[in-house]
């Protein structure tokens, strides 16, 4: 492939690619994102290729591995174009049927369609599925349409047209002004306006400037950046080149965590392809603009997602944050003006340049524009990535898209913003998601993690869990974070183990204040959020643990006991057989009893007791009733009637 030397040549080449493609030719797209691969997508795609070959259809049908469309709960996801028929949880055994029915006969394989859990209706097309229907997928939508390893695929869907537009029709200042006007706010956490950040760097007197992609996605349960990096790397790269152009930078870096090997591979490949096409490197498309991009792999520290720690790490030193009283866009990487934006932020830039700031600002709320990708996980029916306009309510995200809470359980809270985010209770479910709205509610947007918790979740334990994560991930440089979190974790652990004392809440509040006010970086400053937000909305749970030694969610092991209700036990013997601690005494027609001394509280008996009996219960904050006297343990007709 020869270098493209002008924007016109790109457009001509795009037409050439399109002219060779028949839009009506069937194409079997299989998601080969990390989630679907784990569910066997690689085998599925191989099976499709073999089957197509076997049936002599190779010239008539295209098979493609694509990026992640987000519905990971039901992977592997297969979409058949041009009809966009969507099959879920496809296994190798389904492949011959799909080929013979759908490809050859144009018939739908009913059993592989999505069935709406509420209405029971089947959805044939991707866009009919309730999970997708209520989303607005501007950034994620192309993932399923392209082979992420093919720059031609990206060009075919209009890729790099924002770059050609910028280089041929816009000055660097105009690109900056468009991004400023769009009020695009950083998708990585703090929500700082990207345009203002860019402008600061552009105006800084230093001639050498850098643009960086923060691809160090470290929040447990968050994978939106991963999906974009793996599924549509060119979109991020195009955004980065535009950013470089706008601020006058000639060097960009991807800081990608090495735990994302496929992302690293795809980004490296995308850079190589873009260089070959003349979309990167010297004199890009004959414009005179030079821009090079490098990839740096992070070593897996959560704190390296923090801007200054990321830059310190990129400089080759231990990933520890540094004071930020002079902002990184003025004095960042190697003390040069540096624009650092998150993967999703960069992926929005080509859209804004292509469609204009006015289009972008139509979406979203007054202060938060555009869409946001959330990773919806936890106790939710439809786990996956969801992209919604800012301003959608939490309720709509959780119920309309997420399909609500599984197993008939009650919703308790949603934890947003990653480990240092906060928990939002049921009474605030009408909250419209946006940067400022979530912060006001005591949580944050963060990078868009959304973990749904049901009634069985203990909120004190949730706080303990996240503080534990952050204690582990603290870099240890400053005292309020390193020592403060260590002590907070210790106190929270004590509370969940029934060793809480009067005054613990106040002590935790004081430690939280110290961490918020005095920590060096955003990790420490936001680390107390899991505690502060759960205290704000679930103070009664803290008090129950401390004062009554009771866990209201019946979750904290040290505070609960398992007990078999003698009136309900039918002596079926299942719990007796399954108890790994041999703590259950029973026999034929003999009411079973748990020996509390031997019980390890593993919960097996509770899980295996048939729901029609429901004899095993959890008790907290009250003594376990004394065992039934030996002479009353035999189940007779009379005791059954009871």
């Amino acid at each position: 492939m020869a270098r493209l030397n002008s924007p016109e040549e790109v457009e001509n080449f795009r037409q050439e690619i399109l002219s060779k493609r028949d839009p009506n030719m069937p194409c079997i797209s299989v998601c080969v994102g990390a989630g679907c691969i784990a569910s066997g997508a690689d085998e599925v795609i191989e099976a499709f290729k073999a089957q197509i070959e076997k049936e002599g259809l190779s010239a008539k049908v295209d098979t493609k591995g694509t990026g992640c469309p987000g519905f990971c709960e039901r992977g592997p996801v297969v979409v058949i174009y041009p009809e966009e028929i969507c099959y879920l949880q496809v296994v190798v055994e389904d492949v011959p049927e799909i080929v013979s029915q759908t490809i050859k006969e144009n018939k739908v394989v009913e059993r592989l369609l999505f069935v709406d859990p509420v209405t029971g209706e089947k959805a044939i097309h991707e866009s009919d599925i309730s999970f997708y229907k209520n989303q607005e997928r501007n950034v994620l939508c192309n993932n399923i349409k392209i082979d992420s390893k093919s720059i031609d695929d990206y060009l075919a869907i209009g890729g790099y047209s924002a770059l050609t537009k910028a280089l041929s029709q816009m000055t660097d200042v105009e690109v900056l002004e468009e991004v400023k006007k769009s009020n695009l706010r950083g998708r990585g956490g703090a929500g700082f306006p990207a345009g203002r950040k860019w402008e600061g760097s552009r105006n800084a007197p230093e001639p050498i400037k850098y643009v960086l992609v923060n691809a160090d996605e470290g929040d447990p349960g968050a994978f939106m950046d991963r999906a974009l990096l793996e599924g549509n790397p060119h979109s991020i790269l195009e955004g980065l080149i535009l950013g470089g152009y706008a601020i006058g930078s000639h060097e960009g870096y991807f800081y990608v965590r090495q735990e994302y090997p496929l992302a690293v591979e795809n980004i490296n490949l995308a850079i190589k392809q873009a260089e070959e096409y003349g979309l990167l490197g010297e004199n890009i498309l004959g414009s005179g603009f030079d821009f090079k991009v490098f990839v740096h792999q992070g070593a897996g520290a959560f704190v390296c997602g923090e801007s200054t720690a990321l830059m310190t790490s990129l400089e080759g030193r231990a990933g520890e944050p540094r004071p930020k009283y002079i902002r990184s866009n003025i004095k960042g990487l190697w003390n040069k003006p540096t624009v650092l934006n998150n993967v999703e932020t960069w992926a929005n830039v080509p859209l804004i340049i292509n469609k204009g700031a006015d289009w972008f600002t139509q979406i979203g709320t007054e202060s938060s524009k555009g869409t946001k990708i959330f990773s919806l996980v936890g106790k939710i029916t439809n786990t996956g990535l969801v992209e919604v306009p800012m301003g959608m309510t939490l309720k709509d995200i959780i119920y309309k898209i997420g399909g609500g809470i599984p197993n008939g359980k009650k919703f308790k809270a949603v934890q947003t913003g990653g480990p240092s985010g906060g928990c939002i209770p049921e009474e605030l479910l009408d909250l419209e998601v946006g940067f400022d709205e979530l912060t006001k509610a005591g949580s944050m947007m963060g990078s868009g993690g959304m973990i749904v918790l049901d009634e069985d979740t203990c909120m004190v334990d949730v706080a303990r869990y996240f503080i534990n994560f952050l204690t582990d991930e603290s870099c240890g440089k400053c005292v309020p974070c390193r020592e403060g979190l260590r002590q907070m974790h210790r106190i929270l652990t004590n509370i969940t183990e029934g060793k809480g004392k009067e005054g613990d809440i106040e002590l935790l509040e004081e430690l939280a204040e110290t961490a918020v006010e005095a920590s060096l970086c955003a990790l420490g400053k936001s680390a107390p959020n899991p505690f502060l937000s759960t205290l704000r909305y679930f103070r009664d749970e803290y008090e129950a643990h401390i004062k009554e030694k009771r866990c209201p969610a019946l979750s904290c092991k040290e505070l609960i006991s398992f007990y078999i209700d003698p009136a309900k036990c039918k002596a079926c013997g299942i719990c007796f057989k399954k108890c790994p601690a041999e703590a259950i005494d029973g026999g034929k027609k003999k009411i079973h009893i748990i020996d509390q001394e031997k019980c390890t509280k593993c919960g097996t008996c509770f899980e295996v007791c048939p729901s029609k009996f429901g004899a095993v219960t959890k008790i907290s904050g009250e003594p376990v009733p004394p065992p039934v006297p030996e002479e009353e343990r035999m189940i007779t007709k009379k005791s059954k009637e009871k």
Partner: protein
Amino acid sequence: MSEIQLEIDGKEVKATEGMTVLEAAQSAGIFIPTLCHHEKLEPFGGCRVCIVEVEVNGWTKLVVSCVYPVEENIIVRTRSEKVDRIRKTIIELLMAHAPDSPKLQDLAQEYGADKDRFEKDASFCIHCGLCVRYCTEVAKKNAIGFVGRGINKEISFIPEIAAKECDDCKECFPLCPTSYLQAAFVLTKALFSPPPSSEPASEE
């Protein structure tokens, strides 16, 4: 370097551009407590004891004076109820590691800190990094560094370098606010120095 005028504790202070608030205060004879600061070393901002209140254009915020650059017309308050409370908590957190450190004991008295407020941890190091940074920045030997991360972070001599350099230097010893460093050094030396035949083992 242009001159900058600011106010610290009600006193007009002149500073030059590029100075930190701590340096400006020290030049005017105003005391701000520090643990990880040393005039020969690059500011670190780790202990956070030198936290102060700064008023910029009517907005009050807490900043760490050893790294916060002076700005024209800012108002600095080195003590306030909140500043004192945070300093007290920081001292208490550090006394869980080094309850016998004279420097911490002095600060504890000033701020009413209780050395037994938090459960003790069996380490005397407060991670001020003075030894590590002095060895790197001033002695330029790099014989001691931090290993590990977060609560598992500790100082450690690099035996190969320490065996060659430390005996004649030991300049980091008096910098340590807790005396932990000496113990660590002696331990490492005992473990890694040449066999007793070539060097008296009784050396402390």
